[in-house]
């Protein structure tokens, strides 16, 4: 009888491969290195935790005495969010259309896309700072900053969405002799409208969040009272404001879902 020595078969299922191990090791090393770079030390952290506990205690009970300041700040934030979203949506619709390389001549689409890219690249807070310098403190600066942020977001996604549409449907409309606006209305928009509404509601939600913080640099909204509460160490008022912000954003999300359903997204 022939005896064969069979090599032991080792199961390689679920074995983490070499590259992953190296990557995890590198990440680990990086975390240690970076933590030391940013001045992290356990003692500071632990004392900070202690601080944090005291901090939380000072937040309760929430301060309910300054409702008028709260209300004024929140309503200003809402105004900023609404106006910025509406203006942003209205501008992004034609601008995104102009940025669609399959519909527009190259010079126009390139210009539109560059404009959109510039709007996207700077953080809303930075834009808020610049606008405060330009138009003064207050809600106008905040609104303008968020309009720019909205254009950067919706414009890019909208232009991308238009570039993904089926050309065949557009071709058929073109063959009927329709002028350009009708071509867009019946050939392009039906294909992208639901996505556009999705982007717009997302941006409305995003603006709602951002409108609560542009006030920190003086651009209006609840951010102003929030910042000064921090500086006064009035943490119970801080808590009130934070809870209100969270509630408003949750309500906003629910409303947005309802609107999307009505417009069949």
């Amino acid at each position: 009888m022939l005896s064969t020595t069979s090599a032991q078969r080792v199961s390689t299922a679920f074995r983490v491969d070499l590259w992953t191990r190296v990557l995890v090791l590198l990440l680990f090393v990086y975390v240690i290195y970076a933590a030391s770079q940013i001045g992290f030390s356990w003692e500071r952290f632990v004392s900070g935790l202690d601080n944090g506990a005291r901090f939380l205690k000072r937040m309760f009970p929430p301060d309910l005495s300054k409702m008028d300041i709260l209300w004024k700040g929140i309503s200003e934030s809402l105004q900023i969010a609404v106006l910025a979203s509406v203006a942003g949506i209205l501008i992004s619709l034609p601008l995104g259309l102009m940025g669609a390389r399959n519909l527009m001549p190259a010079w126009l689409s390139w210009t539109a896309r560059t404009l959109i890219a510039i709007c996207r690249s700077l953080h809303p807070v930075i834009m808020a700072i610049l606008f405060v310098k330009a138009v003064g403190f207050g809600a106008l600066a905040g609104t303008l900053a968020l309009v720019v942020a909205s254009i950067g977001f919706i414009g890019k996604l909208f232009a991308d969405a238009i570039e993904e549409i089926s050309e065949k449907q557009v071709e058929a409309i073109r063959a009927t002799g329709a002028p350009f606006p009708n071509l867009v209305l019946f050939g392009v928009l039906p294909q992208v409208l639901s996505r556009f509404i999705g982007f717009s509601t997302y941006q409305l939600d995003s603006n709602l969040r951002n409108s609560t913080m542009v006030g920190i640099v003086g651009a209006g909204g609840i951010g102003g009272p929030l910042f000064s509460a921090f500086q006064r160490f009035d943490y119970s008022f801080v808590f009130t404001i934070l809870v209100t912000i969270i509630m408003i954003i949750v309500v906003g999300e629910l409303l947005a879902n309802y609107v999307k359903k009505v417009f069949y997204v």
Partner: protein
Amino acid sequence: MSHSLEIRGLVKAYTPGNPVLKSIDLDVDGTGLTAIIGPSGTGKSTLIRCINRLVDPTSGTINLCSDGRCVDLAGLKGRALRENRRLIGMVFQEFNLVERLTVMENLLCGRLGYVGAWAAWRRKFPQADVEHAFDLLETVGLGDFANQRADALSGGQRQRVGIARALMQRPKVLLADEPTSSLDPKTSFEIMLLLKEQGRLNNIPVIVNMHDVELARRYADRVIGMSGGQIVYDGAPDGLSDEFLKQIYGGEAWL
């Protein structure tokens, strides 16, 4: 009114020096169904698309004539081009319906050359157009489908909507680019019959691109065979002998 199409010296070269259409001369009139057959790549689709300028000819003239008055489609631009496109209806191989719109809205697309943007956005089309649309839906057998979304329809149903859309334009010529290539045999027959009947009813010539020779023989009043960018056969379907088919398509095994 009698309508006709006169094509003279039509040439199309996608890359310079390699013409796909080599000087086509063609007259189409009356109310019959003209079938253009030929192998893939021989320029059938290019020819049809040059007529309504979805493809721009390199040279030549394409005259669309009504009762003697002619317009050269090859040279038109901008507004004049759009206005004349309204007079040419087209049916596509893949139906090219706007999927997310309803059947009714797809039909009304045929009138987009005649309504302004504001009315179009608000979906306020002239009542005469709405009536015409309902009539056409009955004619193509889709009377109950007016408010169905286009993507809920079968292939045959979609092509009927496509034909109805083209007819909504009240065109002077009806073009069809491989209208049955995506359909099963039974549905193909129905579609071809519909095209032929509508041509006669509306008193317009119908030009159809196809690769199914049997279908062409059965429904066409006139067959045009193309090969290598030129017309090599032009006559009645029964004159289409095996000799001619060999010339058009090449090879023998399939005959």
